[in-house]
């Protein structure tokens, strides 16, 4: 038996490698080994005041810092029985969309496009004057710009606190943003077209794993319950009833699974689960790209996110600029959960506070932890019959990348 | 000094007559209560006599001023701004600050380039508990000065401004500026230089030195603080900007040289250095106090260090 190893995994966020065991010319086993060092956020949160949590957990991961911060604040608000002002809700939603746009643009144009073009990085594409690379970066900058407006800074936003937001974005900057968004709406479809063409992806078997996503009436990033593609709908705070976690010796990320086996979270899962909902983007049929369909789904979500951002900015502009944005907080004991969609899939934050408002327990489930088992299964399925070593590592890299994994998030699965 | 009476509404017509040729900036108190220099169109928009948090020096000596840009092998001066600035509704102490900065930067092309086109329209103020203007012998520099229903003309340029507005003016007279502007509120001890020289060991300095957090607020908001640092900004596109940036004698590295020798190693020494600069002046300006008594530093200081209190303490033997 021979082990072929793809190391390091590149053009993904975080450190890991893929180990593939080949026996008698056949791929026999695959492991996704996540070597990223655990940062033990639980030791860090326990005993700390509710006020400190949002800023700290955003440091779990830079790309998802906005959604971590919103998730923590929302979970704590539910623990403290708080309703946040409607305008604050909108600012948070805008922040999430900014993060969504930035993250998807980063993934598609900086991390995936080089695969489609056969280059090592986006730098070669820029050097060659590639229009898509250039415009993709501009789209990414737009996402960052939204995050900056709604979050106060691009990474580790400061605007979100338990109780609401610190302030509304300035009117002039919202107006300028709206114009920018309008201008993008015409450009975007042709820009993401390249990701919708299934011939650009390697041959693939259908994407594995029970789809899991936040369930909501329409298509949104937040909601109260979880929907599985097998039809189950579970209240968010019952997530532990349906998600099992298992530590595995080879990886610093724990595997999440459900009774039915591996789970798939992310853009593809979201769109599949939301099929038929009014504003949900519609996936092409048939989807011949297997897990690479996640890239297609991200492209579709980008168009949705831009539309949604336009709507929100208009609403913010129409709203009362002097309306309260922060609810008063009375610290105390409570338990709260938030289920939310990070760009790369379902994210769950759960906290218990003691009577002084200090963290007594914390649990965070991240999308890449959820996807880990599916990634391994998919690698095994897709790479059957591939024998040549460089093809094997090359294809493996592309498959892992298709999940848009966020490894620095994944090693912070907390459990107490 | 030439003075005229004017009628209600004159201020707006003055602004109107300035508008074609000037960018008009005036102190405006924002919704957050902070005064800033801002473009105005009508007199009612401005808070005349208010002290903007960051003083007027920023117009002639900006906090981050590009001295030159290097592109390839070619040095370029920054493009001069084409529209001259009119500062309107300026309190006397802020005008006095110009008198001082004009001396400091007499030879400085970047300062002079902005200063020469500057039109100053002063406005009388209502001194409050935090101000402590010293008595003055000379009127401050200005082109026009408005107080209640009279105006004063301080320059040929100011006089030119009035030609189009003659009809609005009446009762010309040769009058000094209103006394409250030049009289001041706080006396400075005669023998300040001696007092200061003998003060090095006083507990006063140690006490304020311990409290000071070196945040730099006092110098940033001081209308006559002008220490600067030169720093280069090179960018990947090959451009280099040499910038002149506001510095601060409170900062640890103000007198630090390579190898670690620091000529003002403690906060106490640095604090005393600042007060020496404010009260006694440096170099050719020795003996000229540059504190115009606006009270900004005391208001901005998070730990309530107040130059007027320090001065009083010095005069009274140096008790903290």
């Amino acid at each position: 038996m021979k082990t072929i190893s793809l190391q390091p995994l590149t053009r993904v966020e975080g450190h890991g490698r893929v180990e593939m065991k080949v026996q008698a010319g056949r791929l026999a086993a695959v492991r996704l080994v996540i070597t990223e060092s655990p940062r033990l956020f639980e030791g860090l949160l326990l005993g700390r005041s509710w006020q400190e949590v949002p800023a700290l957990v955003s440091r779990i991961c830079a790309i998802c810092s906005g959604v971590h911060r919103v998730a923590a604040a929302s979970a704590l608000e539910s623990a403290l029985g708080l309703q946040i002002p409607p305008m604050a809700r909108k600012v948070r939603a805008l922040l999430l969309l900014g993060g969504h746009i930035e993250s998807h643009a980063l993934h598609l144009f900086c991390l995936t496009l080089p695969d489609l073009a056969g280059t090592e990085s986006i730098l070669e594409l820029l050097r060659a004057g590639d229009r898509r690379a250039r415009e993709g970066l501009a789209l990414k900058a737009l996402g960052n710009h939204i995050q900056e407006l709604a979050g106060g800074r691009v990474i580790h936003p400061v605007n979100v606190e338990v109780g609401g937001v610190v302030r509304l974005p300035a009117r002039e900057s919202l107006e300028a943003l709206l114009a920018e968004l309008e201008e993008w709406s015409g450009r975007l479809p042709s820009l993401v077209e390249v990701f919708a063409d299934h011939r650009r992806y390697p041959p693939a078997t259908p994407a594995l794993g029970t789809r899991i996503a936040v369930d909501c009436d329409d298509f949104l990033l937040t909601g109260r319950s979880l929907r599985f593609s097998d039809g189950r709908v579970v209240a968010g705070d019952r997530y532990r009833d349906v998600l099992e976690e298992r530590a595995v010796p080879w990886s610093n990320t724990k595997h999440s699974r459900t009774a039915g086996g591996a789970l798939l979270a992310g853009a593809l899962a979201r769109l599949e689960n939301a099929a038929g909902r009014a504003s949900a983007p519609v996936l092409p049929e048939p989807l011949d790209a297997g897990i690479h369909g996640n890239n297609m789904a991200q492209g579709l979500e980008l168009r949705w996110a831009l539309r949604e951002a336009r709507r929100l900015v208009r609403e913010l502009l129409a709203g009362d600029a002097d309306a309260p944005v922060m609810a008063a907080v009375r610290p105390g004991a409570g338990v709260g959960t938030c289920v939310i969609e990070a760009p790369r899939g379902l994210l769950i934050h759960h906290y218990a506070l003691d009577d002084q408002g200090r963290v007594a327990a914390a649990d965070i489930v991240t999308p890449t932890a959820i996807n880990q088992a599916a990634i391994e299964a998919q690698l095994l399925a897709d790479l059957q019959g591939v024998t040549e070593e460089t093809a094997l590592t090359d294809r493996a890299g592309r498959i892992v990348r298709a999940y848009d994994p966020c490894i620095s998030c994944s090693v912070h699965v907390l459990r107490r | 000094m030439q003075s005229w009476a004017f009628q209600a509404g004159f201020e707006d017509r003055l602004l109107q007559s300035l508008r074609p040729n000037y960018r008009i900036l005036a102190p405006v108190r924002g919704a957050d209560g902070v005064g800033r220099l801002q473009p105005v169109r009508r007199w009612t928009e401005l808070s005349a006599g208010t002290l903007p948090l960051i003083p007027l020096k920023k117009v002639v000596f900006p906090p981050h001023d590009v001295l030159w840009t290097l592109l390839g092998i070619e040095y370029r001066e920054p493009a001069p701004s084409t529209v001259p600035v009119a500062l309107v509704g300026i309190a006397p102490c802020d005008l006095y600050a110009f008198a001082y900065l004009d001396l400091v930067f007499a030879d400085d092309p970047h300062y002079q380039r902005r200063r020469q086109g500057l039109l100053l329209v002063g406005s009388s103020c209502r001194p409050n508990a935090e101000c402590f203007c010293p008595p003055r012998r000379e009127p401050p520099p200005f082109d026009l000065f408005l107080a209640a229903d009279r105006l004063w003309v301080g320059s040929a340029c100011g006089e030119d401004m009035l030609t189009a507005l003659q009809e609005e003016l009446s009762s010309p007279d040769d009058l000094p500026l209103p006394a409250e502007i030049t009289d001041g509120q706080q006396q400075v001890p005669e023998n300040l230089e001696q007092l200061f020289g003998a003060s090095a060991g006083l507990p006063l300095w140690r006490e304020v030195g311990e409290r000071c957090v070196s945040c730099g607020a006092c110098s940033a908001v001081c209308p006559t603080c002008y220490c600067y640092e030169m720093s280069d900004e090179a960018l990947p596109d090959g451009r280099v900007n040499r910038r002149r940036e506001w510095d601060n004698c409170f900062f640890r590295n103000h007198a630090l040289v390579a190898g670690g020798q620091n000529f003002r190693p403690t906060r106490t020494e640095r604090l005393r250095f600042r007060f020496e600069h404010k009260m006694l002046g440096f170099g050719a300006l020795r003996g000229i106090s540059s504190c115009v008594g606006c009270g900004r530093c005391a208001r901005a200081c998070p730990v309530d260090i107040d130059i007027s209190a320090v001065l009083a303490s010095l005069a009274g033997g140096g008790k903290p």
Partner: protein
Amino acid sequence: MTVAFQPVPAVIETIDETVADNHFFTFRLAEPMPVAPGQFVELSIPGVGAFPVSTATHSGGATFQACIRRAGRVTSALYRLGEGATVGFRGPFGQGFPLEAFAGRDALLVAGGLGMAPLRALLQALLEERERVGEIILLYGSRDPDAILFRDELEGLAAAGTIKVRFSVDFATELPWSREAYVCRIGLVTELLRDLVFVPTKTVAAVCGPPSLYGCVLEDLARLGIDPERIFATLERRMQCGVGQCCHCVTAGVFVCRQGPVFSLAELRRMEKAI
């Protein structure tokens, strides 16, 4: 005169690396810039920064020569640039040594370490009209024999009898060498003063070295009988603008960059914390 902030471009013509970390640079300027002994320029490496440096030669100004220590951020960047690289100069700044004060008198130069560089410019100026000054004595302390700047040149002058030279070194692994014309001792440069034979009332002294040197030498010279008005030292302070604006160098209310960096001991005594 208006202050000029734009540097005059200059090319690094040669780099003499004899003394480690104290290389001797020759720059060729696009426009001549005469710098008198004791005066200094601001040397820019565009994009990195600038630092003050004294001239080590007395020359017409088409070139600038300096001994530059690798001391920190900007000087290290200079060390990374090779011959042919372009830098920039602003200056000249400050008041140099008052050459007329030396006329008709003996000159006693006391150098510590890198302080030799500006004194070498002074020495060259004095040698240019050698007959105008009496005896020239140089006392020069270095860390170790390898750190002695301009060693061949100084030994040559001493051997020719043009000047008297005495070296001292803080450390030496071998016995210091001494020749007929000059001696070298282990110890501090101040110790060279002890048995020095000279006529204080007829002498003008120039001292340049690290701050610690000034603490002892300047008053020693006065005690030996040299008029404090005729003992000169150059002060080192943090400097940037060179024209008495930026305030870093101010000492006792005096802009060292403008009124100095060369001061007489009489002046220094009036300045709080100058030494």
